[in-house]
């Protein structure tokens, strides 16, 4: 029994082709058997004890996995018995779905596993068997990791901690790795790369390489983002963005206008369709109203005219009557009717006086009646003659008088006739002219009324009112929008300030944090440097001396010594027995004193702790940066979205205001236009009215002139006629008077004669009377008186007829004159009233007629416009693609009156569409050109398909705008800056992690070199020396990685705000960023070029050997193809392996754990000579390593091993392994 821990035995129960085998391994062991008999399988099973890694046993992918090949049955067991200082324990490996382990605190006994019939029992029964026997069996160990922890003594569970093979330190994993590597390396030539791999693999895990694919992916991702941002920031792109934005607005506006117009068109069309019949009806109604109005007016006119005519006639009648009465009265006056009337009143009294005179005369003449009678008869006779003569003359005079009177009358009649004719003609002409004048006057009055109507009419009132309303609404909305815009602009500014403040805060806090962490890291690095310096010098320092020469010095010297003293190399410590347990001869009780010295592991631990601290700090910084970025992104998201929305709103508001301004201007213009048109219309109508008025005025004046001329002409004719008549009458009168005067002279003469005769008679009579005594004087007086009375009566009688006529006329006419005049006045008044009524009716009629006409005209015009519009739409618009484009809007529009006619709308739409297409084409070109500048899978998602719809192009522009508004480029830059930081950091960390192991390699190589030196080659003189040394790697990728790491070390964490030429970028930062980008780019190219999958530890250095065997020295070389014979090569290889194994075991196990042995499994050592083998076994033995080797057949070499097992395949294809009886020559 060994007094140390060692894998003592391996038992296979139903493992692979082996039913049962129990193999002792406590010394050098040799397996002899031809190929494919299971030697390697058994060696793998042994290796599994050390490595507990079913995938690291060198089983190729084409072969069955370890679990399936080895553990085919429920009762397949691999049992490893480990011998210890006191009593052995064993490990059971079995399959319970996966491979699991149990530790049993007892030596292996087949009875635990087999029934009496030699049948292997199931694990439950095994456990039960053991428990029955009171043997401790651990719980099932499910993981390889935990199993290794237990075996290599790092298990913390006290129940299991005793089941260890050795006490490993934190690097114990190197032991199974080394054993595995030795087993797996089958090359016969010694290549430094292989040794490098060996060392590296032993020191690293599978994941501790730098996966270049991953790095390349990171670099690619970074590069792509970098390129995208760079493309975005280019001047061309910025210009294109501006153009896209501008064009999008234009296109959007045009589209909006088109849609608005399409809606108007639809509304107008619907309105036209629905209103057509109604308008037609309205027009017809207006026409009927007009007809009715005209009829009523005509009837009224007729009625008034009748009344006027009646009044006119009455006035004419009364006028005539009054005129005739006045004429007669004047004639009577001319005939001195007043005097006649006065005399007529005296007639009765004169008659009475005459009768008295007659009776007086008769009484005076009664005595001389005969004489009287004689003379009276003679006088009477004479008087009768005289009277007859006078009567004849008078008759003659009367004849003449009458003749001339007749002539005069004829003349007067002729005159009257001609005057009447002339007057009739005059009246006719004047009447014509008057009629004409009246018509013109009526027309004039109508025009005057019209003028008044026109002046009071507001043309285009609806349009103007609509426009005014619209303008008022528009101004109200604009005012509201302007206020809203101002508010939003303020909001934008305050949000921007808030955002900028937050950004600055975040930036400052990140900067502070970076500085703080870098300071802390620097501090820790200083600590590490200090620790490293201690560790580096510890071998040659006082510390190393104590380690080598003083047992438990930590508990003695370690408690009192100054730490700095421990690492001094200049104090030359020497052992002196006398003061071994005293301080310069003074004995001290150090029990209560605390140890101040630290073990190397503790220093190492401290160093690792600090490294971990750095990692933690960096991690925390990363997290902080990520959080910072996160906050930035949140802020960008929050503020950006708010800003974006606000800016969008502002844009919309500005756009609305622009539109409103344009609209206001347009509406104002339209209003002005309408007003002008209205004014113009009034003016035009008034002008035409005035022109007509002027014409009519002129015509009227002409007519009046004509009338005056006519009147003058006729008056002249009448005057001429009258003059002629007067002349003629005067002539006749003259002739009459001359003829009558002649007759009167004749008459006078004759009467004179008669009167003379009568006087003679009267004288004779008087003589006679006197003769007879009669008072002739008194008689004469009576006679005179009789004569006077008779003359007076005669004169009265002369006027009797006139007076009678006068009185008759007076009674019939003159007395009625006031009544007639009053009645005439009444009729005149009535006539005036009728005229006024007529004027008023005309005015009203004209007004109403104008209004109705205007309404009807408006309806007709609207109808025509509608029909024209509908026709135009059907003929020129419906079949165009533009209609298809806006069909939805047009067809779904609500019927509504708009200010635009359909034709204009269609034309404008078509015109606009052509403009829209032009603008849209430019917009599309800009978008294509812009998107084309980016990679197809750019991270901004700036991509547009060639057959993209208008909607997609618009969404592109919208997204681009959001991108700008939310300042996403800054986020992207920040992300990319973080990414470059992270990529650099990740590379630096990986390189550092990997390079960190380089020190271990250097250490291992130093140990190996040391171990080679210690090798006792001198005895056999076979190998004079084996030298090994490290050189710098010439791997291009690694060199670049290293440069990146150095860059990272030099500049700290690279948080690149200067990555792009933005506002943040400062000269220094830009320069650093530029270098970082360049390095990463170089690395990317190198990775592409080198086509290497990963950078492993072995790529970090070059390893060179120099071996001298006899006279042969290889010189410093990577690869030693042949040092000497094959055997020599195998020996050198085995020696190197054993050295490596030894070094790793020494390095990876606890210093206190020394009493253990491990196996070195090297297959196929058949070609090595016995001499060399012996040398090798001894070499191994000196390093507490047991060899397990395979030999193809027995050749005597097996005699050098403690145990030799032979392999035989039986008929049932099972393999039987049995010990070969040999004598151990040397163990």
């Amino acid at each position: 029994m060994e007094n140390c821990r060692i894998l003592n035995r391996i038992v296979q129960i139903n493992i692979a082709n082996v039913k049962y085998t129990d193999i002792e391994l406590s010394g050098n062991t040799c397996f002899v058997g031809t190929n494919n008999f299971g030697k390697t399988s058994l060696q793998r099973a042994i290796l599994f004890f050390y490595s507990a890694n079913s995938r690291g046993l060198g089983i190729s992918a084409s072969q069955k996995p370890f679990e399936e090949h080895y553990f085919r049955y429920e009762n397949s067991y691999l049992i490893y018995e480990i011998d210890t200082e006191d009593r052995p324990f064993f490990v059971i490996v079995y399959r319970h779905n996966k491979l699991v382990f149990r530790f049993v605190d007892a030596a292996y006994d087949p009875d635990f596993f087999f029934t009496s019939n030699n049948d292997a029992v199931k694990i439950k029964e095994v456990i039960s068997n053991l428990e029955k026997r009171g043997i401790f069996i651990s719980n099932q160990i499910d993981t390889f990791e935990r199993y290794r922890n237990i075996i290599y003594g790092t298990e913390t569970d006290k129940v299991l901690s005793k089941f260890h093979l050795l006490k490993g330190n934190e690097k114990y994993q190197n032991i199974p790795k080394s054993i595995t590597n030795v087993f797996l390396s089958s090359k016969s030539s010694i290549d430094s790369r292989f040794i490098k791999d060996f060392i590296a693999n032993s020191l690293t895990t599978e994941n501790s390489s730098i996966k270049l694919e991953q790095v390349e992916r990171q670099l690619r991702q970074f590069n792509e983002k970098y390129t995208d941002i760079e493309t975005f920031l280019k001047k061309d792109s910025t210009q294109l963005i501006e153009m896209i934005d501008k064009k999008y607005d234009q296109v959007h506006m045009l589209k909006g206008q088109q849609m608005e117009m399409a809606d108007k068109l639809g509304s107008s069309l619907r309105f036209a369709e629905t209103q057509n019949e109604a308008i037609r009806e309205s027009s017809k109604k207006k026409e009927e109203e007009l007809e009715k109005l005209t009829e009523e007016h005509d009837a009224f006119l007729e009625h008034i005219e009748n009344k006027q005519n009646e009044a006119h006639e009455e006035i004419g009648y009364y006028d005539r009557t009054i005129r005739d009465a006045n004429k007669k009265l004047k004639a009577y006056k001319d005939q001195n009717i007043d005097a006649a009337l006065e005399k007529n009143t005296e007639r009765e009294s004169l008659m009475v006086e005459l009768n008295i005179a007659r009776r007086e005369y008769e009484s005076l003449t009664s005595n001389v009646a005969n004489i009287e009678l004689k003379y009276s008869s003679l006088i009477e006779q004479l008087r009768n003659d005289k009277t007859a003569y006078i009567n004849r003359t008078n008759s003659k005079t009367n004849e003449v008088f009458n003749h001339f009177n007749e002539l005069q009358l004829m003349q007067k009649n002729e005159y009257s006739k001609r005057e009447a004719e002339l007057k009739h003609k005059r009246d006719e002409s004047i009447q014509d002219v008057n009629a004409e004048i009246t018509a013109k006057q009526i027309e004039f009055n109508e025009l005057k009324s019209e003028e008044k109507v026109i002046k009071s009419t507001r043309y285009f009132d609806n349009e103007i009112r609509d426009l005014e309303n619209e303008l008022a609404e528009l101004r109200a909305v604009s005012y509201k929008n302007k206020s809203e815009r101002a508010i939003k602009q303020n909001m934008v500014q305050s949000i921007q300030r808030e955002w900028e403040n937050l950004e600055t805060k975040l930036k400052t806090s990140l900067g502070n944090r970076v500085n703080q962490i870098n300071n802390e890291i620097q501090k820790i690095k200083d600590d590490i440097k200090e620790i490293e310096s201690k560790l580096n010098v510890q071998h040659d320092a006082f510390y190393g001396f104590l380690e080598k020469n003083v047992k438990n010095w930590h508990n003695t010297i370690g408690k009192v010594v100054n730490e700095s003293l421990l690492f001094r190399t200049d104090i030359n410590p020497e052992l002196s027995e006398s003061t071994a347990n005293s301080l310069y001869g003074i004995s001290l009780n150090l029990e209560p004193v605390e140890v101040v010295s630290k073990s190397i592991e503790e220093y190492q631990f401290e160093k690792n702790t600090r490294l971990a601290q750095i990692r933690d700090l960096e991690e925390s910084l990363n997290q902080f940066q990520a959080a910072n970025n996160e906050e930035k992104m949140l802020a960008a998201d929050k503020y950006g979205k708010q800003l974006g929305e606000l800016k969008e709103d502002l844009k919309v508001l500005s756009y609305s205001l622009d539109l409103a301004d344009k609209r206001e201007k347009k509406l104002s213009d339209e209003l002005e236009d309408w007003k002008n048109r209205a004014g113009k219309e009034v003016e035009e109508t008034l002008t035409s009215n005035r022109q007509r008025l002027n014409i009519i005025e002129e015509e009227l004046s002409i007519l009046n002139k004509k009338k005056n001329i006519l009147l003058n002409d006729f008056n002249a004719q009448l005057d001429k006629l009258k003059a002629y008549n007067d002349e003629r009458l005067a002539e006749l009168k003259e002739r009459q008077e001359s003829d009558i005067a002649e007759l009167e002279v004749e008459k006078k003469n004759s009467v004179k004669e008669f009167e003379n005769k009568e006087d003679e008679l009267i004288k004779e009579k008087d003589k006679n009377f006197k003769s007879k005594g009669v008072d002739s004087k008194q008689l004469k007086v009576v006679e005179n008186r009789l004569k006077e009375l008779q003359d007076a009566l005669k004169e009265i009688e002369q006027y009797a007829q006139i007076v009678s006529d006068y009185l008759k006329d007076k009674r019939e006419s003159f007395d009625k004159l006031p009544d007639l005049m009053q009645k005439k006045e009444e009729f005149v008044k009535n006539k005036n009233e009728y005229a006024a009524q007529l004027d008023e009716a005309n005015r009203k009629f004209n007004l109403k007629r104008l209004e109705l006409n205007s309404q009807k005209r408006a309806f007709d015009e609207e109808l025509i416009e509608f029909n024209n519009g509908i026709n135009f739409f059907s003929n020129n618009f419906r079949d165009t693609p533009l209609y298809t484009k806006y069909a939805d809007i047009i067809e779904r529009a609500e019927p509504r009156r708009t200010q635009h006619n359909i034709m204009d709308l269609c034309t404008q739409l078509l015109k606009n569409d052509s403009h829209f297409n032009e603008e849209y084409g430019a917009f599309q070109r800009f978008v294509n050109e812009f998107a084309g500048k980016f990679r197809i899978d750019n991270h901004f998602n700036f991509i547009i398909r060639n057959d993209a719809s208008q909607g997609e192009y618009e969404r592109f522009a919208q997204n681009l705008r959001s991108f700008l508004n939310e300042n996403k480029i800054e986020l992207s830059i920040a992300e990319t800056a973080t990414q470059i930081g992270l990529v650099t950091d990740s590379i630096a960390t990986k390189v550092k992690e990997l390079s960190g192991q380089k020190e271990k390699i250097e250490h291992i190589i130093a140990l190996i070199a040391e171990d080679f030196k210690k090798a006792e080659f001198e005895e056999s003189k076979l190998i004079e020396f084996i030298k090994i040394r490290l050189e710098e790697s010439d791997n291009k990728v690694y060199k670049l990685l290293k440069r990146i790491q150095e860059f990272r070390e030099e500049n700290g964490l690279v948080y690149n705000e200067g990555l792009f030429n933005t506002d943040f970028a400062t000269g220094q930062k830009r320069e650093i960023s530029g270098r970082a980008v360049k390095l990463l780019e170089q690395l990317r190219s190198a990775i592409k070029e080198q086509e290497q999958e990963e950078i492993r530890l072995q790529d970090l250095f070059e390893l060179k050997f120099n071996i001298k065997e006899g006279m042969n020295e290889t010189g410093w070389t990577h690869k030693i193809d042949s040092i000497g014979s094959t055997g020599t090569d195998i020996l050198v290889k085995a020696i190197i392996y054993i050295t490596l194994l030894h070094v790793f075991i020494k390095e990876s196990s606890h210093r206190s754990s020394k009493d253990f042995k491990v196996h070195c499994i090297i297959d196929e050592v058949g070609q090595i000579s016995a001499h060399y083998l012996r040398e090798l076994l001894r070499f191994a033995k000196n390093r507490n390593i047991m060899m397990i080797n395979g030999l193809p057949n027995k050749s005597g070499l097996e005699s050098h091993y403690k145990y030799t097992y032979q392999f035989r395949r039986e008929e049932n294809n099972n393999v039987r392994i049995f010990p070969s009886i040999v004598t151990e020559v040397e163990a």
Partner: protein
Amino acid sequence: MLAEDFNLPKQTHDIFAVMARGNFISSNGSKDGMNRLYDIINNPENFERLQAYFNVIRYNIERGNNYFYFSKLHEPNSELEKKLERFERYIDIIDLFASMDNKITIGSRFRPSEIAEECNANVRLKQKLQKIPLYRSETLHNKVREICDLMSRDSYLELEDEKTESYKVLDAYTYLLDVINSIAIYEESDNSDANTINYN
């Protein structure tokens, strides 16, 4: 004279290799770092140096709208004629492209199948495609492919994604349009026997 004497960018060789073949370097090209080459030439300092350098070997760098190309100093007329002949075939191609519903413009991305489909659906386009000379492909798709291939070779297009056969129109396409647009076709006159095409 050595390249170093001119303090030339290290991509000079790449630039020469592209442009000496008669190809263009467009700003929106991505294959073989074309956009980088463009940026390098576009740098005013580099441009002057490169221009001076290439002038020595009788090449002149011509600047277009976002693209560069070489012109030869004192090129013989026969060469010019050949060049012009090369453009003749593009007249029909550009005519076809300009007649498409989805206009092919700078930066457009399309697949030959899309164009072929559109041509197939539109008789006018189909006829235009069929009358394009020099190609013997039986299907419309293959014909468009050949056109795209030709244009890619002449660096007017770039095969951006081989899997999806997606092409991108490069900035140099402007050159093609400019040349085609500057062709003035004169009607047959009494003095000439046939229509003549003049390149301005």
